[in-house]
């Protein structure tokens, strides 16, 4: 237990961060130049951290497996970024953002961390605007906001449906500036395959140059892991194809605890699966729930008629539609948090009301919004007695301005026009709240090894609110890590350059080479994807939106069996010393096969339903989640001991001093 020291500063909640910053050790500018920091991953957290650390004067080595830092998957975030600016004067405040985030996370996150997040959120917007991020603006030239699920204020800043892209390009620009100055050495198309520890501290990594296959040693005084989430353990998810857990899993195996691995977010609005060939799922931004209404038919015969194509969605009369979110949660309606919306969709589809051939889809309908906006616009344009066609026309223009790119994306993928007929959506794996355990300084249980952004577990509890991932990634990278890492590095000013000839580097390199050689010589009969798809099925069926003890036990057995088969029968074509995507995938899937088991174990151990973790045994008669605060108000931090299924569990008790634990209600 002693190892889990969260290092939460003393003092009242609102003053913790300020006090901490004031008393933390610093490294003077001349000494910063003598200190190397490795940053793995160049998304919002990694990119912003690398840029900020380099601006401070540290020598940064940044790594990404993509061909450019700009391609990290943060780029795909659509909806927006939260910040407690209260520009809309609708009662927002740091406290309210803090409260919403804790409540949205179903009371499974750390108060101090979340408060700090809310506190720096406003700075993020200032910083991004200063960098030239083109946020949406109103006609007066000031920033526009919209509303997101789980909250009752409008605090989300956005750039159409491409907010993540714009923020990432901002961070990438800041990185580019430091790359140009030589303060960041950028390693594109490099993958971290091992952490090197010297005297119990993180001192470097082993990376593979993905073009030449060369195995490289890189040393540093501290290592930051910002490699994102592990949603791809489900094979089908909204993550990029390359998103992986490898960097996180490597440090986990070297001693970093993995926290709450079972907390995964299933996003309610994704394009449904169309067939076995599917390689990934596409998200339709949560912002669509601002204007779209979710429904399924009330009558089974209508469902049948729609599935067989005899009726079109718009033929279903208003009174025969079940707007089930509005029915079940009148206060928040279509804007309930993601976990609630996802489960509600699953509930309807399981009951047989799914509206596509597979029975796994619900409607997201914009017709009322189109009419509402059309009437508004007609009034603004002073059109008297507009025809319904005219109104719909005007309304479509408004919708296009707001969500044009999303509608276009939907049409390209599905070949259906969402302006005319409702979208079909279904939940899909999207984000992982769990991740590497970190203390208040974002340091893992390995000294000198940090985790930032989605890779850590810290701020979202059991469920993340929409538009909070971007906020957390940038908060960690721009405003938290650059301060807190100095506290640790202040002891390293006399260390000097770390030699890569140390035996620890040699040993780490050897283990990497052995694994690669194994894959190249295994000569099995099945491709990597074959195993990945199988793992995905197990995870989705047993460790997905709804879990139960029996299924989880089965999942553990199935994953172990699959893992054995993988090591016996995986086939990796090509060579080790060339560009070889199959070899890359093999290493990543090997790690997923271990992580999957830990997720199931964590889910099995957590005998309650909270946030994204829904145990069928723990629900009310109406199907709402039942939390068990008496026994589970803790962070489950798992220590690797050679077998993921037998990992040691440590508990960090969560103390709520400023918020009263309540049953989350959005009714």
């Amino acid at each position: 237990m002693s190892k889990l020291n969260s290092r939460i500063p003393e003092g009242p909640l609102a003053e913790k961060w300020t006090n901490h910053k004031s008393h933390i050790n610093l490294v003077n500018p001349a000494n910063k130049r003598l200190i190397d920091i490795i940053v793995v991953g160049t998304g919002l957290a990694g990119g912003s951290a690398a840029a900020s650390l380099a601006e401070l004067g540290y020598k940064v080595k940044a790594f990404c497996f993509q061909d450019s830092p700009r391609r990290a998957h943060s780029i795909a975030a659509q909806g927006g970024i939260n910040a407690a600016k209260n520009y809309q004067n609708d009662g927002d405040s740091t406290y309210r953002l803090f409260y919403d985030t804790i409540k949205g996370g179903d009371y499974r996150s750390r108060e101090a961390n979340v408060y700090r997040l809310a506190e720096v959120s406003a700075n993020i917007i200032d910083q991004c605007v200063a960098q030239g991020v083109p946020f949406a603006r109103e006609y007066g030239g000031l920033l526009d906001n919209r509303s997101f699920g789980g909250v009752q204020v409008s605090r989300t800043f956005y750039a159409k449906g491409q907010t993540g892209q714009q923020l990432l390009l901002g961070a990438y620009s800041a990185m580019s500036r430091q790359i140009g100055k030589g303060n960041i050495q950028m390693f594109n198309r490099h993958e971290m395959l091992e952490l090197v520890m010297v005297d119990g501290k993180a001192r470097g990594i082993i990376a593979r140059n993905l073009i030449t296959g060369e195995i490289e040693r890189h040393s540093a005084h501290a290592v930051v892991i910002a490699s994102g989430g592990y949603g791809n353990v489900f094979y089908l998810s909204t993550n990029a194809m390359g998103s992986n857990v490898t960097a996180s899993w490597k440090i986990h195996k070297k001693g970093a605890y993995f926290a709450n691995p079972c907390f995964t977010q299933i996003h309610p609005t994704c394009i449904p699966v169309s067939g076995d060939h599917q390689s990934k799922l596409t998200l339709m931004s949560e912002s669509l729930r601002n204007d779209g209404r979710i429904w399924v038919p009330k009558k089974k015969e209508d469902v049948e008629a729609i599935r067989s194509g005899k009726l079109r969605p718009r033929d279903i009369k208003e009174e025969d539609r079940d707007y089930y979110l509005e029915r079940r949660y009148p206060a928040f309606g279509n804007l309930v948090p993601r976990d609630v919306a996802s489960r509600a969709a699953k509930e309807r589809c399981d009951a047989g009301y799914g509206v596509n051939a597979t029975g796994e889809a619900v409607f997201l309908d914009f017709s009322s919004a189109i009419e509402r906006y059309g009437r508004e616009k007609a009034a603004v344009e002073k059109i008297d007695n507009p025809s319904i066609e005219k109104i719909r026309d005007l309304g479509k223009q408004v919708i296009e301005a707001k969500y044009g790119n999303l509608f276009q994306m939907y049409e390209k993928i599905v070949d259906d026009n969402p302006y005319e007929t409702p979208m079909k959506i279904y939940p899909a794996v999207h984000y992982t709240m769990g991740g590497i355990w970190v203390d208040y300084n974002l340091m893992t249980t390995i000294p000198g090894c940090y985790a930032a952004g989605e890779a850590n577990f810290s701020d979202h509890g059991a469920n993340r609110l929409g538009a909070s991932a971007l906020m957390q990634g940038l908060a960690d990278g721009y405003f938290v890590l650059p301060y807190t890492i100095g506290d640790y590095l202040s002891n390293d000013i006399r260390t000097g350059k770390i030699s890569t000839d140390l035996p620890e580097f040699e040993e780490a390199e050897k283990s990497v080479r052995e694994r690669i050689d194994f894959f190249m010589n295994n000569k099995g009969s099945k491709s990597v994807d074959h195993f990945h798809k199988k793992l995905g099925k197990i995870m989705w069926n047993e460790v997905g939106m709804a879990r139960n003890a029996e299924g989880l036990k089965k999942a553990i057995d199935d994953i172990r069996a699959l893992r054995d088969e993988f090591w016996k029968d995986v086939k990796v074509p090509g060579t080790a010393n060339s560009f070889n995507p199959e070899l890359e995938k093999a290493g990543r899937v090997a790690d997923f096969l271990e992580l999957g088991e830990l997720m199931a174990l964590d889910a099995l151990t957590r005998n309650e339903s909270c946030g994204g973790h829904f145990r069928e045994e723990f629900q009310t008669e109406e199907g709402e989640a039942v939390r068990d605060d008496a026994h589970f108000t803790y962070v489950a931090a798992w220590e690797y001991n050679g077998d993921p299924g037998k990992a040691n569990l440590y508990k960090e008790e969560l103390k709520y001093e400023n918020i009263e634990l309540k049953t989350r209600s959005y009714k």
Partner: protein
Amino acid sequence: MNLKLKIWRQPNASAPGKMVDYQVSDISGDMSFLEMIDVLNEQLIETDEEPVAFDHDCREGICGMCSMYINGEAHGPDRGVTTCQLHMRKFKDGDTIYIEPFRAKGFPVIKDLVVDRSAFDRIMAAGGFVSVNTSGNTMDANAIPIPKPDADEAFDAATCIGCGACVATCKNSSAMLFVSAKVSQLALLPQGKVEAKQRVLSMVEQMDKEGFGNCSNTGACEVECPKGISLSNIARMNREYLSASITGDK
């Protein structure tokens, strides 16, 4: 549907490459183009051949990683999409599909369909930023109102995903659309205007060093750009460049 594929195979940067014929069958119209290549690769792995290397990541049209020249067009015959969003319903049973890497001196081939686009990163490092350090004390985000049309136009330019389709398409392999999108975005915003002159000069200088050709205003880039980045950005860059080189220090 059944398709005949002609794909550029090249083992590495220094080895010669050639077009190789392949056959795929039972392709569904709902598949994306990359999912079709996945099918081919599974087939190749099964028969102990090396799968076709290609760049891809997000598979939702935003990361800019995928980069194929399909049947004579960057990202294929559909408009406003990247290769990963191109769906097989755009093809017919029995079609022959040519698949080549993006070709330009500035984009050397790494393997098969994978090219090295780090020239774009170097252009960005030359000036594609606002020189502002991370600080909790920058002015309030609303301190400078920005006219909505300017903000919108800057956003439109900023939606460039850096895929390089403009270079691949341009008969001159010119990178003007890419460079101008960034120059334009930042020149339109008050925060970026401060160092606009230096930026345009440095970025253009780096662009020329990388071996891209010169723009001759054919407009092909704008047509093939998956994000519809407008030619007006190139005009703005020309303008910025002209005034910067007349009045600037460099």
